[in-house]
């Protein structure tokens, strides 16, 4: 099939829109009908998937696609004109090899997660009268349509981020996803737990949003700084221009000793630390497991957390501006190498001691994202991108598989309860709260849920890097090979993390699927219900890609053989960079290491947990001693942050700003002035107005009155008296006037 370039360009514009349309349609039109809602959501998501794959297919046929990308843009927020040194902020789309690969797997995993959600939300079952909206249902999800609306909006955000041609539009998609993850994690907003310390979905949603928000704030500042220096935010203009990159890498920044590209890079990386849950902002992701499982798969595997890594891969030319392989790392790269490697190891150790089937996967995700960040930090651009793709497939598979497990166990629990009731246990006390996510309550599910089991094993092996077959092996091996060449320290840390990964994966598989059932619920678990059909479909498709996605990136001289097919991934994605990165030579040391850690970890895990029996302690608890509790409680980071940030912020706002400054100083001064004015008024009244002003006024009146009163005596009315007085006056006046004259 041949497509014209204009057609592909138009298609790229359209890719993110169908899910948005689905969101609007579901909210406005179809929200009453569950069937219509999921048909709308899946149908339109499917449309996006088809368009994405057409674009992907088209780009395969372009020679040197890295230089001949598909791009288009329009003005969005105009500021002045080019003559004034300002440029309009543009919105546009860009498909280069990296985007194209992202489109390939993002659209597919999103579609599969949508399909999976149909089963997961118990579509087809009658509504259970005990279900309240906002709690996990037994019957069909009461807020079914809303769930698909949120999922669609989320998919829109992710696709928008992928096709964005500039940092601003990418940030828009980034934030839309943040909003949706808030809505989706808190989807069961009415859920409460008997244990007040256990975090509820509402709190988890706020925590996730707030923690990523801290990262977003830095990212926004990075964008502002970059714009003020580069006058543009377009990927093409910044990342594909040697001149621009050199300019940014040689201009001293506001921070002494660092160049502009360093500061921008570090700020943007801070955004990724939040979004991809890297240390120290990793705390939100495990709690985000409070959301429904498809949400976990969507947010924590295929899309949102990958977005953080994608942003770093995308901005890599800027982060590494001025760096050539073999040079000392730039500050942002150094930060990524350190943070990534540390996070990879740190969260792998936590994952070892978790009992919740989803929490293990959550920490495993943090750890794997650490692998990618570390790879990028040491310059392993291709390896990071490759691992991003393979990880998306196998981690989505694992999350969805764990969702199927939880569903199966819940079914079993339901079933067992009914049996207990009908079995005549009349004195059956209200059942103790049963945790269907606790792996220690499972066991023996392999026989009861075979398809789930086999797909989960495939995902688990891919995660552990099981050699030669699984996709995870090829991508992880490439990261280790890169690390071996560029940074041996990182290599050692990542190898240990990989060992732990294999170990906890086998621990999870053993506890969940192998051995004997350790609860009635596990005894009665099954995957035969009709609701499992769409779920299993999604699992099988993902399992296929969890294996095959790795085959496109095999080194050409692997094991010294000449591979019959070229390293396609390297050649394709490498075209994004200005300088095509050199292909790594095959090296037996990292290969040996990855074989040892993968197989060794798996074997060790199987050996430790193979004989686990119901009621026993975790076999790790003994040897690890006090350390076990520290790992289980996640190194107490939640408690630490509560003391370090939450309480001081509350103090600052409540006590300092509100009580002291606002009510104390400002209002206090105002009231003081008010009271002072009042008092001054009283002083005026009491000491001046009343005695002096009023007094003198009164004095005049009073004296007139007094005067009149004293003269009243002579107002007798007798004419003789008046005449007498008159005479007397005349005599006196005459004497006064005339006597002086007489004297002369």
């Amino acid at each position, binding site marked *: 099939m041949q497509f014209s370039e204009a057609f592909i360009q138009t298609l790229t514009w359209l890719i993110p829109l169908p899910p948005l349309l689905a969101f609007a349609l579901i909210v406005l039109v179809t929200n009453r009908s569950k069937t219509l809602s999921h048909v709308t959501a899946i149908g339109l998501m499917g449309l996006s998937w088809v368009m994405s794959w057409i674009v992907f297919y088209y780009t395969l046929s372009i020679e040197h696609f890295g230089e001949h990308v598909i791009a288009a843009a329009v003005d969005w927020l105009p500021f002045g004109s080019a003559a004034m040194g300002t440029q309009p902020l543009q919105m546009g789309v860009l498909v280069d090899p990296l985007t194209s690969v992202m489109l390939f797997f993002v659209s597919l995993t999103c579609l599969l997660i949508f399909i999976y959600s149909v089963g997961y939300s118990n579509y087809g079952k009658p509504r259970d009268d005990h279900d309240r909206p906002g709690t996990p249902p037994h019957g069909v999800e009461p807020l079914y349509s809303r769930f698909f609306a949120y999922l669609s909006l989320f998919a829109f955000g992710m696709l928008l981020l992928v096709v964005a041609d500039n940092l601003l539009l990418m940030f828009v998609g980034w934030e839309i996803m943040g909003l949706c993850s808030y809505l989706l994690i808190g989807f069961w907003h009415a859920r409460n737990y008997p244990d007040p310390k256990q975090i509820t979905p509402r709190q988890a949603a706020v925590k996730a949003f707030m923690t990523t928000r801290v990262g977003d*704030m830095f990212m926004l500042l990075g964008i502002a700084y970059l714009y003020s220096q580069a006058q543009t935010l377009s990927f093409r203009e910044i990342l594909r221009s040697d001149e621009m990159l050199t300019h940014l890498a040689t201009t001293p920044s506001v921070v002494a000793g660092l160049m502009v590209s360093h500061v921008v890079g570090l700020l943007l990386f801070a955004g990724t630390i939040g979004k991809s849950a890297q240390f120290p902002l990793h705390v939100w992701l495990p709690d985000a497991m409070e959301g429904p499982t498809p949400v976990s798969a969507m947010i924590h595997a295929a899309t949102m957390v990958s977005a953080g890594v994608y942003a770093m891969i995308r901005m890599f030319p800027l982060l590494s501006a001025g760096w050539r392989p073999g040079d000392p790392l730039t500050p942002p790269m150094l930060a990524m190498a350190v943070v990534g490697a540390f996070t990879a190891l740190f969260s792998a150790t936590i994952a070892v001691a978790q009992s919740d089937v989803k929490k293990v996967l959550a920490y495993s995700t943090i750890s794997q994202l650490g692998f990618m960040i570390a790879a990028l930090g040491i310059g392993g651009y291709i390896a990071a991108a490759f691992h991003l793709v393979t990880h998306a497939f196998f981690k989505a598979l694992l999350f969805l598989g764990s969702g199927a497990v939880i569903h199966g166990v819940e079914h079993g629990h339901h079933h067992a309860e009914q049996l207990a009731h009908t079995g005549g246990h009349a004195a059956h006390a209200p059942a103790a709260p049963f945790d269907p996510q606790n792996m220690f309550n499972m066991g023996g599910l392999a026989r009861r849920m075979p398809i789930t089991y086999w797909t989960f094993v495939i995902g688990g092996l891919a995660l552990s890097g099981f050699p030669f077959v699984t996709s995870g092996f090829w991508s992880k091996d490439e990261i280790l090979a890169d690390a071996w060449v560029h940074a041996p320290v990182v290599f050692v840390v990542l190898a240990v993390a990989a060992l732990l990964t294999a170990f906890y994966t086998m621990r999870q598989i053993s506890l969940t699927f192998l051995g004997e059932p350790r609860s009635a619920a596990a005894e009665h678990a099954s995957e035969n219900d009709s609701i499992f059909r769409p779920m299993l479909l999604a699992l099988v498709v993902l399992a296929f890609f969890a294996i095959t996605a790795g085959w496109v990136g095999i080194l050409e001289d692997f094991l010294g053989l000449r591979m019959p097919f070229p390293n396609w991934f390297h050649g394709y994605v490498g075209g994004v960079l200005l300088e095509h990165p050199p292909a790594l030579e095959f090296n037996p040391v990292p290969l040996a290491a990855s074989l040892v850690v993968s197989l060794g970890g798996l074997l060790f895990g199987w050996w430790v947990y193979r004989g686990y029996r119901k009621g026993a302690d975790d076999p790790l608890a003994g040897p690890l001693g006090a350390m076990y509790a520290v790992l289980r409680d996640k190194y107490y980071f939640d408690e630490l942050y509560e003391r370090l940030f939450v309480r001081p912020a509350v103090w600052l706002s409540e006590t300092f*700003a509100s009580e002291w400054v606002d009510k104390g100083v400002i209002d206090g001064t105002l009231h003081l002035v008010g009271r002072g004015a009042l008092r001054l008024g009283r002083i005026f009244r009491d000491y001046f107005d009343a005695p002096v002003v009023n007094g003198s006024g009164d004095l005049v009146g009073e004296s007139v009155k007094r005067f009149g009163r004293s003269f009243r005596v002579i107002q007798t009315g007798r004419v003789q008296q008046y005449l007498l007085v008159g005479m007397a006056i005349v005599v006196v006046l005459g004497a006064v006037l005339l006597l002086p004259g007489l004297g002369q």
Partner: protein
Amino acid sequence: MTFPFLSVITFTPLAAAVLILLIPAERKTEVRVTALAAGVFAILLSLYVYFGYDQAAGGYQFVERYDWVPQLGISYYVGADGLNLPLVLLTAIVMLTGVLISWGVDDRPREFFAFLFLLATGVFGVFVAVDLFHLFFFYEIAVFPMYLLIAIWGWVKTREYAAMKLTLYLFIGSVIALVGALMMFVAVRNFTGENTFDMLAMSAAEQAGAFDFNLVLNNPFTGTPWLASSFQKVVFPFVFFGFAVLGGIFPFHNWSPDGHVAAPTAVSMFHAGVLMKLGAFAALRVGVMLLPEGARFHAPWIVLLTLVNVVYGSFIAMTQQDLKYMIGFSSVSHMGLVAMAFMTINRIGYTGAGLQMFSHGVMTALFFACVGMIYDRAHTRQMPELGGMARKMPWVAVAFIIGGFTSMGMPSLSGFVAELPIFLGVWRARALDVAGLPGWLASLAQQPWYFPAIAVISAVSIVVTAAYVLRAVQRVFFGELPHEFEHHVGDVTVLDKTALVVLCATMIILGLYPAIMAPLIETAVGPVMALLGVQ
């Protein structure tokens, strides 16, 4: 003669107020319908003027000028430009939605609407003023009915205190500004020999050098000068702060949350949505545009006050239990961004300020509308006493959440397109005239990291805003519905929903397509930049 659009817009509310007073008190529905008709009429005309403005031509358009007191050079002089058109539209939107959500006011609706509309006339009059006296005249008209509206229809507990506090702050502020304005008038007369309050003429005189002299104030006992500084540098702070009080600038912001809380819903909407813009707008129109050298000189330290506004307001908002207080302090924080943008003295910052005035006006009107609807039904605004409201009034919940995300700068809503340019502008800002500032401030302000540091610190408010918005959403709309609300709290009316939809749609449209407003504002920002002597 062309149709006098701006005068008709200005006096439509006044005419409606008079008409309403002629209707017998007991015919409440007729009063409301009249009010609604006036609201619709005003918004249609505003839209016409907004879209009829010729951006290519720029400058003042739809100009009308009549002599008022010719001896003193006072005229009735109105015109529309890129700065005031969005605000005229904003006022019309708030007026219409205010009428819609005040349908239920049952205590003397006649007087209520009459005063509300008198206020609206004042606000329109200030926004379209080209004559300085004209501006002051309507400014006082806008402030005065506030007192009565709060003191009569307000919240019983604090209305007298709040009404008094508000009125005193605003009148004192405007008197101070008036003194400054009169000094400018005299300076212009001394320079040109003409009496004029025409701001265009005054601005031209300023550019020609009318204010280029030193104000000298001698110590009467020794004869040595206490103060000898250029006119603009001395007068600017008085004029700017005199108006900025109404914009809620720190430390003169405290009248505003108290006023918001005590006012009835529609008045809160007007108050936070429009009146605070009046202060910021006048500070720009009179302060910055007539005294540009003063603005350039004082920007480095005033920006610190606005920084306090932004961060401190958001922190206080986080601690409030009363929803209205929370929104009141959030307004202080967001209006701080407007004032901060004025201090950037660059194009991108000023464009952001224009957008933020509009965006915040719509957003905060929406917030107060939502709170009013909750209070009318639950009879409390205390967050701990509320909960689960999303089930009872889903429309209000959705609208509040949209408003909340606008307020925390979520992309694709108007808050983002307004705050992003402000942050970009602050980051790019430079101290322009530091000669004469205290030495430490001058050297501080000249550091290349000074304004970026301010951008960084003010970005903390983004996080804090998210915290208090989410906290409020969670406490009020989600969680358990208190038992006593189960039966007597119902959903809102169709008119309420209409108002919410209008406000939300405005924020979304502007957020998705800022080109509907940004270029218009740009046409007016260009000349301001020319006055300020920057590109």
